[in-house]
């Protein structure tokens, strides 16, 4: 009988980046994302061991990750992460041919985006990340979060308004600064 662990290696390989990306975008903090990442796969491992390992696996790991995230969020209640641009700068890279100004601008923009994400409350944040960043369809988001489709659409709708508003303001401020 195959050791559960051997098969799990494959599961890990296939899903690790996706899950890490999700958790990082949700928390905005690399360190936290790492912790939650490990917790997710540990939980999945414990439960998966002798469970049916067919189909829906990656979807299920998504929901485990979201549950881990939810537990973390409830515990820490730190809804605002102070993300300094210098920190996040490590993870954003401009294209090869970009000028220093461009690079700096892009760095700033991305950091702001991440900050914006984190400024959303989790009920909105999760659907936004799943929709725009992970590229899931609304039905899939509903399945993975256990919420109804209408509620996901409403959340996306609200988030869209909020984000565009904030983005618009940021853009104006930036234009001011560059002048």
């Amino acid at each position, binding site marked *: 009988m195959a*050791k*559960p*662990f051997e098969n*799990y*290696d494959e599961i*890990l390989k296939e899903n*690790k*980046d996706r*899950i*890490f*990306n999700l958790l*990082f*975008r949700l928390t905005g903090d690399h360190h936290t*994302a*790492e912790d939650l*990442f*490990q917790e997710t*796969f*540990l939980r999945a*491992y*414990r439960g998966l061991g002798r469970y049916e390992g067919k189909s829906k696996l990656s979807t299920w790991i998504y929901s485990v990750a979201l549950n881990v995230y939810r537990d973390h969020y409830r515990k820490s209640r730190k809804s605002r992460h102070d993300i300094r641009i210098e920190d996040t700068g490590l*993870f*954003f*890279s401009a294209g090869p041919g970009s000028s220093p100004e461009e690079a700096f601008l*892009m760095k700033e*923009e*991305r950091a702001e*985006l*991440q900050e914006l994400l984190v400024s959303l409350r989790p009920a909105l944040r999760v659907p936004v990340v799943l*929709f*725009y*960043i992970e590229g899931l369809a*609304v039905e899939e988001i509903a399945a993975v979060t256990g919420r109804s489709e*209408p509620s996901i*659409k*409403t959340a*996306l*709708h609200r988030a*869209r308004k909020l*984000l*565009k508003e904030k*983005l618009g303001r940021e853009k104006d401020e930036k234009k001011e600064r560059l002048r």
Partner: protein
Amino acid sequence: MKRKKDYDDRDLRRAFSSLTRMEAPERTVRELSERLEREQEGLERRKPAAAPLLRIRREVLFAVFATLLFAVPLTYLVTKRFAAEKAPSRTYVVRFIYEDENARSVHLVGDFNSWRSSEIILERVGDSKLWSAELTLEEGLYKYGFLVNETYIVSDPLSGLKVKDSFGNESSLMVLADGKRRGGSS
């Protein structure tokens, strides 16, 4: 029904697509793998090693036999809390079990007998701390409880199915339908 345009936004899509896709850091994945291995080992160690049977002594055989003789019917009773076999025309034979070492008397009360106390007696099972009674009931849903020492009524500790009336009373619920037993807890 919200149209796609209402919640989907091209600008946002464009903006978010500029974000780098993160990869799980090597270090973290390695740490995780180590933790998983440790879990795996821990689990395996817990599995009892198969001890080779060298010689079975007569006394051991006898002890095993005696235990089984006692344990099997007891287990049957304990695990088949509500043994509901289907009698003709949708009635059910139901066994109710209550566990209490120190009780002096246990009665069954519920919708099926208008909660009349001291009517349906549970009998003690041998020397065990179990009390049991068997009822034939028609298909339906019945609230019930156990009257202990003719003093107080408790809901069934062995069943997870509980209902509350509007007066703050809790009782257990037994659902009898379709020849399958319901109402037992895990």
